[in-house]
């Protein structure tokens, strides 16, 4: 009986979430689209970093690429939106494979910084090649129904989570976690670590690029500093880490809470908002390096938990 109740409850929640645009105003829908797009990106970072242990600091590169592919397809070839998104996702995955082959051999700081550099390089290149509109950016056609973006992004997020759950229960998922934990031991178990890393990076690039494509059509205007902004990479990271890296729903929770707080502060406490992201990152790194999900899984939590985190990590 309890189980039935639980499923009924979950089903009601699911219906409520799926129909938000029907009963809420444009403001809330807009806010939720932002949350969902960031949740997709954070989950994308989670795949390569949270599960596979390769902390990319330049995942925004897939977002930017996806945004540009969708924009260029829709402007130049009048490709339908959904088809453009598919092109974006393929471009994101292919780009991840191409850059992944050389850079996924790098470890630690080197991998992190080189990904940061690739983001900046793509921004510089986009600024300079003529068909991307250079620094002037690109304008997309207006969508007839703004609620479209809510449904599309929600469906993509749900597909991503279901897909990830499926992956995690199979050999690829176990392989990713083994690579994160100890790459040499993973190799010796017969795990093709190179293939595992490239697949994980491709999944990350695939979905992050879709988020970029949705964003492009949604915002109707893109330019290099917006869609290749390195701070976006950091937002994906902090949302995942805050929620819980290496957990399925942590990034979604992180995206929701952080965007909510950020929006709230920016409307009501503008000055505080200046300190928000930087401060949040510093506090999270010190007190919550394992994220919210880890806190929730503790029995009886108190000051000790946070002090223990500091004690373990300080010099």
């Amino acid at each position, binding site marked *: 009986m309890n189980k039935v109740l639980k499923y009924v409850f979950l089903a009601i929640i699911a219906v409520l979430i799926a129909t938000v645009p029907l009963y809420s105003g444009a403001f809330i829908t807009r806010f939720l689209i932002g949350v969902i797009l960031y949740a997709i990106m954070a989950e994308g970072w989670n795949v390569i970093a949270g599960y596979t242990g390769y902390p990319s600091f330049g995942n925004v590169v897939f977002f930017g690429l996806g945004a540009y592919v969708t924009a260029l397809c829709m402007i130049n070839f009048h490709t339908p939106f959904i088809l453009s998104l598919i092109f974006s996702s393929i471009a994101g995955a292919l780009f991840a494979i191409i850059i992944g082959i050389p850079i996924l051999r790098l470890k630690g700081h080197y991998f992190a910084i080189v990904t940061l550099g690739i983001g900046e390089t793509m921004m510089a290149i986009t600024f300079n090649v003529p068909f991307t509109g250079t620094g002037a950016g690109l304008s997309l056609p207006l969508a007839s129904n703004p609620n479209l973006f809510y449904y599309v992004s929600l469906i993509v997020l749900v597909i991503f989570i279901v897909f990830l759950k499926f992956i995690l*229960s*199979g*050999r690829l998922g*176990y*392989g990713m*976690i*083994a690579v994160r*934990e*100890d790459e*040499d*031991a993973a*190799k*010796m*178990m*017969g*795990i*093709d*670590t190179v293939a595992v890393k490239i697949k994980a990076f491709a999944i990350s690039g695939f979905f992050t690029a879709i988020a970029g494509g949705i964003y492009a059509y949604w915002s109707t205007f893109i330019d290099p500093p917006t869609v290749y902004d390195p701070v976006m990479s950091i937002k994906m990271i902090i949302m995942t880490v805050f929620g819980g890296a*290496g957990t399925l729903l942590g990034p979604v929770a992180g995206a929701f809470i952080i965007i909510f707080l950020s929006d709230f502060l920016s409307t009501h406490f503008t000055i505080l908002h200046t300190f928000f992201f930087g401060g949040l990152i510093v506090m999270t790194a010190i007190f919550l390096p394992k994220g919210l999900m880890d806190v929730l899984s503790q029995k009886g939590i108190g000051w000790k938990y946070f002090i223990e985190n500091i004690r373990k990590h300080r010099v």
Partner: protein
Amino acid sequence: MNIIKGEKVTKSFSGLVALKNVDFELNKGEILGLIGPNGSGKTTLINVITGFYKPTSGKISYKNHDISGLSPHKISRLGIARTFQIVKPFMELTVLENVATAALFGRNIHIPKSQTRENAKSAIEAVGLYDKSSYKPGSLSIAELKKLEIAKAIALSPELLFLDESMAGLNLKETQTTMDLILKVREQRDLSIFFVEHVMKVVMGISDRIMVLHHGEKIADGKPNDIVNDENVIKAYLGKRYKRQKNA
């Protein structure tokens, strides 16, 4: 019939020769002990055989197939497993998850996932860590970590197992149980074992045959009793240390 065979295996690191024309052979079902002073190339030899390093020259064949220079994951999938001298547990996973991960790979790579669970459980039982299945490695003792390392290796369903100093850091009693464990596992799983060890008591106790490396070259290979009386071996390795152990 040999299961693995090396011919003139040589490995050098930017000019420095770590292994020089080493010939070796391990017969099916045999336990071969590899001894030698520190820096004599024991771990390097294991690393070369298991694919961590590519041999500079020479040929290694496993069941008469040339495997020299294959990548580690391919070698593992052929049925060769190893442990590491410095254990490499997956720190954020439980003992069961550690071994269950192993059971999905190695020679089991093509078996449906549902059939690998049993394999993981039996590997944990074999090493006697069943009670600790839900523990994380952080709360295990050194002896238990070494057992976990062995459990992960045998969960890969290997035919040939390399053990790199599985007894180092263990006390006498733990050493004894680990020795028994190795013999039992060999019986149950029809394994061939190639192991590196420092404790002569262990080497003498369980080896069918012993091979000695010195400065990257093989200086002796034979029955345990012949090895301990071999002039070269005594001079290079056993020396006073062994006599002291014997008298103690």
